[in-house]
């Protein structure tokens, strides 16, 4: 299978914690500039798969590569946004961003880094927040800052592990819009892998959805999301095609669950 640049490739990957299999025979390709959602229930191994792509874990079998280079560990080419503890609490928001900038631009002076940090923060709607510490911000603002830090790494790949899962619905909606906005505004577009258990979120944000099942974790099916951008929630919810796709995915998840319940 040929590997193209700026593509993520996961081939024949197995993973286990102790003796228990967590992922079995995962095959996944993400094209350059694509927004892929990893959708599945708890226990489907989607976060683990993300950690493998990030290089935070090593697979038992198989291989992962980013940009044609095998993944052996984490790196600034694959930025990660977590759901919790996304920032260092003892540093100011500005300093958190500056750490990422220092990796992307090692030759910048402190002043230049600070100015660039402020730009990144403005882009996510947090202009005045640089001298504050994370504990002074609301959950939504903290996640915005975490996104800013990930973007400041200027990496070709952006990996997100249910980043909006801990937020209330309004903030979640705001941040979803912000993410799409920022992602679309960059040229070239980053390749995004977004883990979620929310079907609506996946269909709203992604170009393609990989549905995962549990016991053991594996990819059941992949769906292309055909809706043109910009995607508006109200328009989507009125669209019959949206509802059909949603049902299909829900059915795929249910079938998988039932199949396992009945097999057990």
């Amino acid at each position, binding site marked *: 299978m040929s590997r193209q640049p700026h593509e993520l490739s996961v081939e024949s990957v197995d993973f286990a914690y102790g003796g228990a299999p967590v992922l079995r025979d995962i095959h996944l390709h993400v094209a350059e500039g694509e927004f892929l959602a990893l959708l599945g229930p708890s226990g489907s191994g989607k976060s683990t798969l993300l950690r493998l792509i990030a290089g935070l874990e090593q697979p038992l079998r198989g291989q992962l590569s980013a940009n044609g280079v095998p993944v052996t560990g*984490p*790196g600034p080419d694959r930025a*990660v946004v*977590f759901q919790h503890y996304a920032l*260092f*609490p003892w540093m100011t928001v500005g300093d958190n961003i500056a*750490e990422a900038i220092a990796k992307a631009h090692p030759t910048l002076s402190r002043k230049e880094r600070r100015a660039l940090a402020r730009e990144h923060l403005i882009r996510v709607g947090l202009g005045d927040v640089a001298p504050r510490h994370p504990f002074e911000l609301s959950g939504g603002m903290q996640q915005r800052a975490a996104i800013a830090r990930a973007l400041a790494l200027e990496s070709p790949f952006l990996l997100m592990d249910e980043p909006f899962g801990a937020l209330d619905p309004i903030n979640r909606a705001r941040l979803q819009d912000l993410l799409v906005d920022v992602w679309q505004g960059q040229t070239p577009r980053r390749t995004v892998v977004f883990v979620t258990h929310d079907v609506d979120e996946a269909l709203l944000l992604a170009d393609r959805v990989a549905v995962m099942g549990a016991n053991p974790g594996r990819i059941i099916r992949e769906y292309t999301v055909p809706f043109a951008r910009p995607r508006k929630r109200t328009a989507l919810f009125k669209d019959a095609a949206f509802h059909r796709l949603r049902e299909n995915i829900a059915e795929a998840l249910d079938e998988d669950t039932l199949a396992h319940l009945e097999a057990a």
Partner: protein
Amino acid sequence: MSFQPKALVLPSGANNTSNASGRKPVRRNRLTTFAWEPWALGMALLLAWQFIGGTSSAEGNPLLPSPEIVFQALLSSLPELGRGTVSSLLILLPGYGTALLLGVSLGLLAGTTPRLARTFFPFAKVAAPIPPTVFIPYAIAVLPTFHLSATFVVFLGAFWPIFHNAAAGALAVEGRHRDNAWVLGFTHAEYLRKVVFPASLPHIFSGMAVGLGFSFILLTVAELFGANAGLGRFVQYYADFADYPRMVAGILYTGVVTWGAMSLLEALRHRALFWLR
């Protein structure tokens, strides 16, 4: 019946209006929210002391002199106590300071490097429980000056709690912080400095507080053995003369010094851990 939290402080304009449950709220002001209980206890202890101590005349209690006699002895001994404080601090500060530097750096290193942990933790398990007090006579005999031996013993007492707590703090660093540092491409040195050290500060401060307490204990004991000045020495010296007022004064004074040191540490902790409040 609804539960009314006693510590509730209402705005002053709320005096005569009914609250949601239809009851008039009790007016609270600074006087009623002031914690009077500890002061009442202190007063009670003072009165008990006065009672046991008897009068301030020569017929008073010989073993526990009255507060007035002790206070007079304290005042007259202040210059000597002041010199003793300086002498004690000249032992405490180098000993504790060295223990702090070495304990934190070695503890954080051991807690983050598996090989170092494997090498040193078993040794620490055996060496740390040895009471530093048993080193005192040996240190005094072997080291050239008393000052050096006392500093060494103080160092030993403070080092182990600080080392253990720093190591525990390093081991307890949240996985997320490790992941974030790793993704950001931190070197091991950057990781120690920017992540492990700040994340371990709560543990380190615990170790510092215990270490400081041990330091004072060991310092005063060492001074009982071989000093010619210092706070421990003060009490021992006047014991030889059966000068109970001075002894009690010395004890009280030492208590004030240690309380001051602990308060200073607590203030430092409060400031350093600003992000945890």
